[in-house]
């Protein structure tokens, strides 16, 4: 029997293939179940959670640790393993916390969950991609799912508006990204990350740079466009204007998904692009990322001060967090990559906690919209108020909590790379952002709300997520070494 052409390639991708198959089976299954009523949605949700869990198990136990697949368009190593595991964890958590919200908002369509699953699949492939074509295809795959997710609540005009806005700006940024890719292809003739890395080795050395008369300015332009497309997608500061509107208009479960999950995949794949292929052209992208990081930190801290709506506030807060991650990114050192990984993990935990809380405070009489609605939460729900206060302290970066560790590590890496000005700016904006985080705590504990909301009973799954994430946030500082070790391993993967 002759072996299949791609036999071994399929073996390396067993988790993704399994997940693809389950998505397709769930698509068929969804068509056969009745579309009304929460009961079938609940069944559907549990099935998709199972599929995510099994994909996670397959991923962890995949015997093949290092491989290239499909003629070097995909790569598998510790780096992808770490980010894929984090991604599946994030999707799992988001799906768990959005369960009751979907039923309460009467969003019974199974397609919503299916789009979540498909976008998770696309991001799994995105993390693995090792070629500009596969990168662009998976980004398109992901954003197409996201447009639908943003517009999924068809009865609400805000949701439709969010979908349209996201669609227009997302298409624009995809175009810029593709333009960057094609410029790079045009000036080097290659799309593979590894090939590009080999071609550009030592290009920045002055003796090579002057002699070879390499078309570097065209390449710079390509990298610039690539970086702009990437910054658009991760909502970094000059390109962030779509984020608050989309985050606010979309259904809250979608907002949770948008702010937690895609950042993992995008940061992972662009870490690989910039460190693997363009590390020798460091000066071309480091300044762009540094500038955007500084601007995101400033926007994230100052623009959030004036926000009255909780989802907008969280959107600006996530912009600020992206700024800190980009600071770690632009350090261009081993410590920088490690700090990004650590920050990302802790960011996922904190955001899961916050969004679980926002989704848990599902009021019976009206929707939780404004910051002032949290008033006197300490009296009505003392445990929830304590949880929220802890997470907010952690986001602000108060010492013993997890958020402090991640920020500390980012600033440490920045100082190590000599980026003193931006590191000091980061500390200052972090202090300013403390103001609005602590203002929320003040509202919860000391202010009377303008309108009283009656909240539903917390369900078991959300309570589990809240407890788990709170535990991690509170006691991270006692035993951080597993995360630090795995982050170090991840960072070493990029230093080929």
């Amino acid at each position, binding site marked *: 029997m002759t072996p299949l052409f791609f036999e071994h390639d399929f073996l390396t991708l067993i988790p993704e293939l399994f997940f693809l198959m389950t998505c397709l089976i769930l698509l068929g299954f969804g068509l056969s179940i009745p579309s009304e009523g929460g009961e079938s949605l609940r069944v559907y949700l549990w099935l998709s959670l199972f599929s995510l869990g099994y994909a996670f198990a397959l991923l962890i136990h995949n015997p093949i640790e290092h491989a290239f697949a*499909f003629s070097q368009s995909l790569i598998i190593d510790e780096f992808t393993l770490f980010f894929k595991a984090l991604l599946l964890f994030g999707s799992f958590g988001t799906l768990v916390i959005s369960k009751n919200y979907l039923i309460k908002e009467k969003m019974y369509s199974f397609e919503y969950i299916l*789009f979540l699953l498909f976008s998770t699949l696309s991001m799994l492939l995105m993390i693995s991609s090792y070629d500009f*074509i596969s990168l662009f*295809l998976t980004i*398109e795959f992901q954003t197409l799912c996201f447009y639908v997710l943003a517009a999924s609540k068809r009865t609400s005009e805000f949701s439709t508006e969010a979908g349209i806005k996201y669609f227009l700006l997302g298409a624009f940024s995809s175009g810029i990204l593709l333009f960057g890719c094609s410029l790079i292809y045009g000036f080097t003739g290659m799309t593979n990350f590894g090939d590009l890395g080999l071609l550009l080795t030592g290009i920045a050395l002055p003796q090579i740079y002057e002699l070879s008369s390499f078309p570097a300015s*065209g390449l710079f332009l390509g990298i610039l466009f690539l970086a702009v497309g990437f910054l658009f997608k991760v909502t970094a500061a000059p390109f962030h204007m779509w984020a608050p509107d989309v985050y606010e208009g979309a259904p809250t479960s979608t907002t949770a998904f948008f702010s937690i999950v895609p950042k993992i995949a995008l940061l992972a794949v662009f870490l690989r692009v910039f460190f693997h292929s363009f590390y020798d052209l460091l000066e071309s992208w480091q300044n762009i990322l540094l500038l955007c990081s500084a601007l995101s930190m400033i926007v994230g801290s100052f623009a959030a001060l004036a926000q009255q709506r909780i989802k907008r506030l969280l959107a600006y807060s996530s912009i600020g967090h992206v700024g800190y991650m980009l600071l770690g990114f632009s350090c261009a050192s081993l410590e920088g990559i490690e700090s990004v990984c650590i920050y990302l993990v802790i960011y996922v935990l904190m955001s899961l906690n916050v969004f679980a809380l926002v989704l848990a405070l599902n009021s019976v009489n009206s929707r939780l919209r404004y910051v002032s609605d949290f008033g006197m939460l300490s009296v009505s729900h003392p445990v929830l108020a304590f949880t929220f206060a802890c997470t907010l302290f952690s986001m602000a970066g108060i010492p013993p909590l997890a958020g402090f560790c991640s920020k500390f590590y980012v600033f440490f890496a920045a100082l190590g790379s000599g980026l003193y000005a931006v590191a000091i700016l980061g500390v200052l904006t972090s202090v300013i952002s403390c103001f609005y985080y602590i203002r929320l705590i003040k509202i919860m504990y000391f202010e009377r709300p303008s309108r009283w909301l009656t909240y539903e009973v917390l369900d078991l799954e959300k309570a589990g997520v809240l407890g788990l994430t709170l535990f991690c946030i509170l006691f991270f500082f006692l035993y951080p070494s597993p995360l630090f070790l795995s982050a170090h391993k991840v960072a070493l993967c990029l230093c080929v």
Partner: protein
Amino acid sequence: MISEYLFYFFSSLALASAILVIRARNPVHSVLFLILVFCNAAGLLILQNLDFFAMIFLVVYVGAIAVLFLFVVMMLHIKVAEIHENVLRYLPVGGFIGLIFVFEVLLVVENDLIPYAGWHSGIFSLTTAESISYLVSGLPFLLDPTRSFREYIHDFQTFFSFGSSGEASLSVNELCSSEMMKKVSEVFAQASYTEWTRVLEQTTNVEAIGQVLYTYYAYFFIVASLILLIAMMGAIALTLQRTNQVRRQEVFEQNLREYTKTLQKVRVQGEVGS
């Protein structure tokens, strides 16, 4: 020569009609200009010997997408006046960003795309003037397919001796003189070379795509199919109205039904006697 003029013709027409797409007052006209852009792009593709791509371009973009646009535009009844209210309002910002883009592209074009064949200087570690003088003297012979390999070797040997001794080094002024540049451009205009791979084996566009699409690029093909699936699902999920009023076919129940029970003989009282 003709292909050069055709290139200028197609590209300038494409640019002009692309501007008219966004400037036309009537949306139907702008869709028609869009079709013209696609046709010109197909012409440019044919000039690059990409016949299959040109055909696909026409079939997909003109045949499907532009016609779909036209349908949408004609069905929606967009008010003509609304569209061009705010052109001047966005001009300063848009113009500024556009100018930045133009300057960036011009920068690249200036530095990298205007050919002076500086590539060789790095490899042979010569000055630019020397390499150009080499190119001017040697290029027509190098690109001549009728010459033998021995002659090439001889050429290289003489060139290296000439380059290293530096007997005939040109000054920068000489290089920049118009005569020199004219010579360079003449050489580039005359240069013709044989692509031996093409002589050995001719493949058409379709064959070339087919050889890689299902083998090396199979993964891209699969992901593209998934994207199409998502696009279809998204369109359905966002527009399908699920109401209780519509009577729907329940396939599962239909299959479960026992036909012996659906058709029944009913004895009607009163008809027995007749």
